[in-house]
């Protein structure tokens, strides 16, 4: 039981990080970033190369990973999404583009990195024992860093000027523009930060579970489940979604086979959405 709680906490913290990035992008640009899982995967690969292959410090690798994904996110926003969001009238088109970028990243990774499963040597070793549950130091590191990043992001969005501008854009784009905010730059920044969070989540989890080029879709589905539970575009909802999914998964994996766990999660999700279509904290059709 204690073990389940410990596993749940670690999963929840990391999942919250993934969901936060997705919900940030959704809130600001109002489209679903299908490539989120692929960004997670790329983040994992950046850490793999910088840390495991080039042998640099793990934190340098994390920084490189955040920077790489930030640049990718900003590039996607300015080169692709800005144009498509401007010229199309059907919201479906931006989704098609998101799917296109997901395919591009996945195929790029397949071409560059191959299909092999990649893991990295442990950053920290040792196992802690808490209330009879085992917590490997590597998982503790993931937990601490994830929690720090989540708190850091919350503070950033709440108290800094760009953060306030992001919340404003999410609420009302036109009025924000009238207030003299450079909406284009804020959108790019939001996409960049969202992408960086996905990448960091990948860079953190690569230390405990290996990654491969094809992992993206599975991660994206998890991210979607989380923001459906919590409500799309709501920061607190994303964290809540991460906690719910993390614990459900931890309990499920401990008691029943893995694929049945996810089947039950899906069934539960569909029933939940019948009762509350906008998620726990979402506004209707936000």
């Amino acid at each position: 039981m204690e073990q389940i709680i410990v596993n749940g906490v670690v999963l929840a913290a990391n999942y919250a990080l993934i969901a936060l990035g997705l919900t940030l992008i959704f809130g600001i640009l109002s489209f679903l970033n299908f490539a989120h899982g692929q960004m997670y995967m790329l983040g994992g690969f950046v850490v793999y190369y910088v840390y495991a292959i080039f042998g640099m410090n793990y934190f340098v690798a994390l920084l490189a990973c955040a920077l790489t994904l930030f640049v990718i996110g900003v590039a996607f926003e300015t080169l692709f999404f800005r144009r498509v969001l401007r010229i199309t009238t059907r919201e479906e088109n931006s989704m098609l583009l998101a799917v296109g970028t997901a395919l591009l990243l996945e195929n790029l990774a397949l071409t560059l990195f191959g299909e092999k499963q990649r893991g990295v040597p442990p950053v920290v070793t040792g196992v802690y024992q808490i209330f009879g549950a085992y917590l490997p130091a590597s998982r503790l590191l993931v937990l601490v860093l994830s929690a720090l990043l989540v708190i850091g992001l919350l503070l950033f969005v709440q108290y800094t000027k760009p953060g306030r501008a992001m919340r404003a854009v999410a609420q009302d784009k036109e009025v924000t523009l009238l207030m003299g905010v450079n909406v284009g730059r804020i959108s790019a920044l939001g996409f960049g930060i969202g992408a960086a969070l996905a990448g960091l989540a990948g860079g953190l989890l690569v230390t405990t579970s290996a990654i491969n080029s094809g992992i993206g879709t599975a991660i994206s589905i998890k991210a979607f489940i989380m923001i459906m539970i919590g409500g799309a575009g709501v920061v607190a909802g994303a964290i809540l979604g991460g906690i719910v999914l993390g614990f459900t998964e931890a309990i499920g994996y401990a008691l029943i086979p893995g694929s049945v766990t996810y089947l039950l999660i899906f069934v539960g999700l569909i029933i939940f959405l019948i009762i509350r279509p906008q998620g726990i904290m979402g506004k209707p059709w936000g």
Partner: protein
Amino acid sequence: MRQTMPASDLGWGQLGLTAARLAGLALLALVYLVALPVWFAGSNYILGVLTNASILSFISLGVWVTFAIGRINISQGAFALIGGYTAAILSTRHGVSFWLCLPLAGLVAAAVGTIIGIAILRLRGVYFAMITLSLTEAVRLAFLNGGAFTQGASGIVNIPRPDALEIFGLTIIPAFRGADPLPYYFLAATLLILGLLAVWRLTTSRLGWVFRSMRQNEELAASIGINVAKYRVIAYGFSCFLGGVGGAFFAAFHQNIYPATYSVTDSVNFMLYCFLGGLDFVFGPVVGAFLLVISFELLHDLQQYQALIYGILMISCILWLPNGILSLTFRRGQAPEGEEEAAAPVPDPSGKPRGSPT
């Protein structure tokens, strides 16, 4: 902003079925049903690719119908899987004829789709997209964990080829023999043409107007007395029917089905075919599917970069042809109200197109 609303309000039929257009369609059908099979009779590979593209188009037509009511449907793979398993289980264990399995698979898929649809069609926009995506994964996992009934990951193999279709002792269609791809090609072509006719008829009928009014503004449609809940389930059920029939065809075509036969990627692909062809055109999914499937085969020579080029091609397509490939053909001349209106946002005709019931 290029001619989106006008074209979407005008179905294929309203664009005018002139004599020239009819002749063009007839010629297209002739090429498809006669010239192509004669030309490629010797090449099993090419016929296989064309058969594949035909049924993929057929399945995508269903997704197109759900787009018509304004829902992004990423669950079509799930219903192809349900249809495929229905046909596989009926034919291998109960000896049901393929010709009965085909419609039954569609009906089972439609029934499941209707039940699930009643629940999930209340969702809209990205929520609907996300839940249907999850549904694809859920159905795959359900078949994976179905125990003896679905035979888990090992799937159902040795599905019999289509047998002879006889009515009162009269053989209408002879049994499919060996590895000859021609019968499959003709069956696929027939299905696609029937599917296209059905969808075309649907979009030009009263139901089509109802669907379009729902896409533009569901509340408004409801307020003028349209039973929105009923019609969206009808659209979704119809979509699932096409998915089920297509899945049953592939089960007999490949003679096997596994839980992994249709994954999220396939559901996304069905959606992409519609997008790429153009959501405003009945022919959209057909053009999209044929183009992507055939270009994928052509890019085979570039081997390792194939998928990458494919991704780049797709993004360029979206960037420069956001309303689909078919929007090219209607841009000049034919375009109802073309470039003039491109600059100004199209005034919303209060969500009530002409001819919509009041």
